[in-house]
């Protein structure tokens, strides 16, 4: 059986459920909004992980769950807990259930998309860039510093720069401009990440097990994810990667311990390919909806272990 964890109406989860239905696979939603009716108990004994999961009126043996797709939201922010004071029985139960669930998912055998630990590398862009470059994908020239003079030297070396957060928080790309120059001294408080601007075409690559789906994005804005918000546009179309780059994308995904990833590439006008990051929990629905690429179906087949090595 396959477990789909999160809010069932959320697009990626709903699309994978639809694909699993088409496959005829046995699956259940673990709907976080019904956590009050759920319970879990599990154990590790002599190297075997097992236990039971009760979802309302149904109870399942954990050893019978072969795969899980996780799109869990922060349980503390569940609408059902609005108005519940800190430490209330409902909040305590929600927290205890989710903790026990997360802990089981970390050690459970089976196809978990994705476990929590391997997702961590995305929390530090330059750390992840070091891992990515080990697998042969080129990463943008990056400087992290609290020294304004080094930023100016880096700008002389590379021309136009962008800056963005080092962590995964507030990760919006901005061009380093005149206004920023005037407040450059502020970086002495905390190192800031600058990158050489890479001009070219954005490419989002979804890796599912051994399968790969490349989407080309034609946009007139610096960060296409925010094109509409910034008055720009973004057009998406299915694409094909050179085979060596496709292999490297699969290799880096697996090396990071991920079964499913969304990799951000940029292809320069002279054909160079740069990798910006590997997203461990990609909201693929945006790309599938705009291109028709069967990413949800690939994910469903991976979870159900159909046609996947």
């Amino acid at each position, binding site marked *: 059986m396959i477990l789909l964890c999160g809010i069932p109406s959320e697009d990626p989860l709903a699309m994978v459920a639809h694909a699993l239905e088409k496959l005829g696979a046995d699956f259940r939603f673990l709907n976080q909004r019904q956590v009050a009716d759920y319970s879990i108990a599990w154990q590790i004994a002599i190297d075997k992980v097992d236990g039971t999961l009760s979802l309302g009126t149904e109870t399942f043996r954990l050893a019978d769950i072969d795969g899980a797709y996780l799109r869990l939201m922060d349980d503390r922010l569940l609408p059902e807990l609005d108005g519940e004071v800190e430490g209330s029985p409902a909040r305590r139960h929600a927290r205890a259930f989710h903790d*026990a669930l997360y802990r089981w998912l970390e050690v459970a055998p089976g196809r978990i998309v994705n476990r929590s630990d391997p997702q961590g590398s995305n929390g530090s862009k330059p750390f992840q860039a070091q891992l990515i470059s080990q697998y042969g994908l080129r990463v943008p020239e990056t400087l992290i510093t609290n020294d304004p003079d080094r930023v100016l030297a880096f700008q002389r070396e590379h021309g136009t720069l962008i800056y963005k957060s080092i962590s995964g928080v507030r990760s919006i790309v901005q061009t380093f401009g005149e206004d920023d120059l005037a407040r450059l001294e502020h970086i002495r408080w905390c190192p800031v990440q600058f990158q050489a601007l890479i001009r070219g075409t954005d490419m989002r690559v979804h890796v599912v097990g051994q399968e790969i789906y490349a989407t080309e994005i034609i946009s007139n804005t610096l960060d296409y994810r925010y094109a509409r918000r910034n008055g720009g546009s973004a057009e998406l179309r299915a694409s094909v990667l050179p085979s060596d780059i496709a292999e490297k994308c699969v290799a880096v995904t697996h090396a990071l311990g991920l079964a499913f990833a969304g990799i951000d590439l940029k292809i320069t006008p002279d054909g160079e390919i740069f990798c910006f990051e590997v997203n461990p929990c990609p909201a693929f629905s945006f790309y599938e909806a705009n291109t028709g690429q069967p990413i949800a179906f690939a994910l469903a087949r991976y979870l159900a272990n159909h046609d996947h090595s």
Partner: protein
Amino acid sequence: MILVICEESDGGALWAANRLCCQGLAVAIITGADLATAERWVHRVGQAGAVFELDLADGRHLSGREIRGVLNRLSYLPADWIQRVGGVDRDYAIQEMYAFYLSWLHSLPGPLLNPPTPQGLCGNWRHPSVWVALAGRAGLVTPTYRQSSDDDPDAFWNPAMVPAPTTVFVVAEQVIAPPMLPEQLQNPCLRLAKTAGTTLLGIDFTLNTAGEWCFVGASMMPDLFRGGEPLIAALAEAFAA
């Protein structure tokens, strides 16, 4: 030069640094307070790899060129730095600095005991359930682990202390074990450290009621004093490799 990175309160790390000096190794200690007051950070990542320059307030200048190995005992951001950060952007600044330290520590050359991870700057601060699972898979006798939605999640991070557990140290490919522990524990201990991605690991054991040495827990920041001179010799050998 061997770099020892630790908080000022880490007596074990300071002792190890001193003992490594006595073995003839050039050792530099950088404390959390040193890092908290660092005047200049430059860290680059790109096609040529990752490099850094660090200017400390006491006038020391560091870069990767002179480092031959690192004893990394910084589990989180330096306490002195965290105390200095305030205001509405405090949480953001902490996230940013953690992400920065993770990348910087990962870029340090030479044997790195231990490499940083997103879940801990001197190694993955794993949940006890994960350690039990890994230890079992490595072939160690483990206690039964149970968790349910009726349990307080915080309680698992503070398990009841086992009186005077016996600690085995794994340093790179070496195992330093007290003489009363059977030799057949060595390979499972090596497997556990390798699976956990650690190059310095303390593994605690206790005798169970069946008379077997049973896994109790593991730490990437073991009490180095307990390893004594054999541990220092293993560290020196690891840095010489």
